[in-house]
């Protein structure tokens, strides 16, 4: 078999366009997922029963169903009840909803892992639940959260390739377009893998940098 460098040279800039879309989707879905995930995580830590149950049900649903089905639900099923998004935004929303469930579990876990004496000390000076969470537990939970949240963001970025099935012109879809016209699956999929690998490595490096910069006591 001959490796076709010509098609690689041809595809590389085309795929770069896909990279831009993949980055846009990942960043937007990442931010939305983190925000919603934190809100859900705090809700499940609030001790308010109905909130706790709602979050638990939501996390169960997301974990118990394939992401592909969740994407279809947002893109094909929601329009039936009158909620319609473009491919791009349907993809962003589906990925964000998915990531939020996992983020909420990370938040809940990291805060729950803070030593019990911290909670007791806060209670002993008359704190109620909200200031305890905001001023005592969360500030200590940031750093231990970072590695797990990085995992979630890495997964989200890789999962964005699934959006090719609803015709979002992201990296994977861009590659498939080249393959369909030039029939070079070996070269192009290898190139796709390389692009993703570079993206993920950059993300992981940024996360390690962030973790080092967050204070530890």
């Amino acid at each position, binding site marked *: 078999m001959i490796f076709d460098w010509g098609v690689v040279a041809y595809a590389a800039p085309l795929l770069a366009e896909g990279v831009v879309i993949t980055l846009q989707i990942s960043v937007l879905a990442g931010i939305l997922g983190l925000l919603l995930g934190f809100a859900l995580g705090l809700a499940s830590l609030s001790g308010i029963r109905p909130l706790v149950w709602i979050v638990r049900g939501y996390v169960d649903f997301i974990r118990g169903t394939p992401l592909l089905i969740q994407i279809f639900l947002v893109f094909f099923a929601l329009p039936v009840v009158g909620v319609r998004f473009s491919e791009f935004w349907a993809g962003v929303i589906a990925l964000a909803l998915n990531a939020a469930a996992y983020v909420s579990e990370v938040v809940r876990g990291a805060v729950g892992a803070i030593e019990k004496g*911290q909670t*007791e*000390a806060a209670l*002993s000076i*008359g704190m109620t639940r909200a200031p305890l969470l905001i001023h005592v537990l969360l*500030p200590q939970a940031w750093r231990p959260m970072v590695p797990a949240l990085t995992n979630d963001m890495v997964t989200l970025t890789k999962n964005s390739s699934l959006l090719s099935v609803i015709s979002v012109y992201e990296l994977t879809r861009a590659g498939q377009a080249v393959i369909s016209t030039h029939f070079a699956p070996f070269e192009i999929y290898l190139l796709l893998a390389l692009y993703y690998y570079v993206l993920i490595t950059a993300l992981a490096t940024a996360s390690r940098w962030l973790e080092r910069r967050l*204070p530890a*006591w």
Partner: protein
Amino acid sequence: MRPVILSARGITKSFGDRTVLAGIDLDVAEGEAVAIIGASGSGKTTFLRCLNRLEMPDAGTVKVGDETIGETAFGRAADARSLARQRRLFGFVFQRFNLFPHLTARGNVAIGPRRVLGLDRDEANWRAENCLAKVQLEAHMDKRPSQLSGGQQQRVAIARALAMEPRVMLFDEPTSALDPELVQEVLDAMRRLAAEGMTMVVVTHEMRFARAVADRVVFMADGAVAEVGPPSSFFGAPKDPRLQRFLRHLDHAA
């Protein structure tokens, strides 16, 4: 006799089928310092934690002044907010300090006044600095707990409790986690507090402290109060055989 400020009646507590407290009664007068001693497992710490509801007693009542902890003025069960307010009647000092590691000494003491009492930043810091000065830590206000010795950390913890202006201070073996050379500075801080008239209940293994500072000493055994008395008779002429044995063991150890 000074008026009773803290009154515990019939406090019981079981963990599973193990009875830890079998009905404890204790009255503490305003300004009094009471030391509680006893073998480990005798329920001293659990009793202390039942007073400010870090532990929920199975039965019994705790009153501070005319407030019943866990109840509203109309005898109904207190909600989380009023229980939190009632907890402020007590200051609690933990064996393992439990300082907030992400805050400076000043921040540890100021967080209560600021986030619970709602003082503004300057007022809260000012109050924190006063309390830290009381335990002679004015030189260490900007240090984090990890930069302080155990004795200094425990004094910050005392200041943190004092900043809430509690009616009664509870100490749970405050020197047990300390290196021997650091015990004295904490005991000195407590001694000054007692001399200023703070009402204190101290669970401790420091017999010299109990003897020198406490107005009364309580000996707990098997989840009950086995003997109570002023230090002179308590240590000089103990009546309960378990207390006699306990004190003998300590003599041998020393």
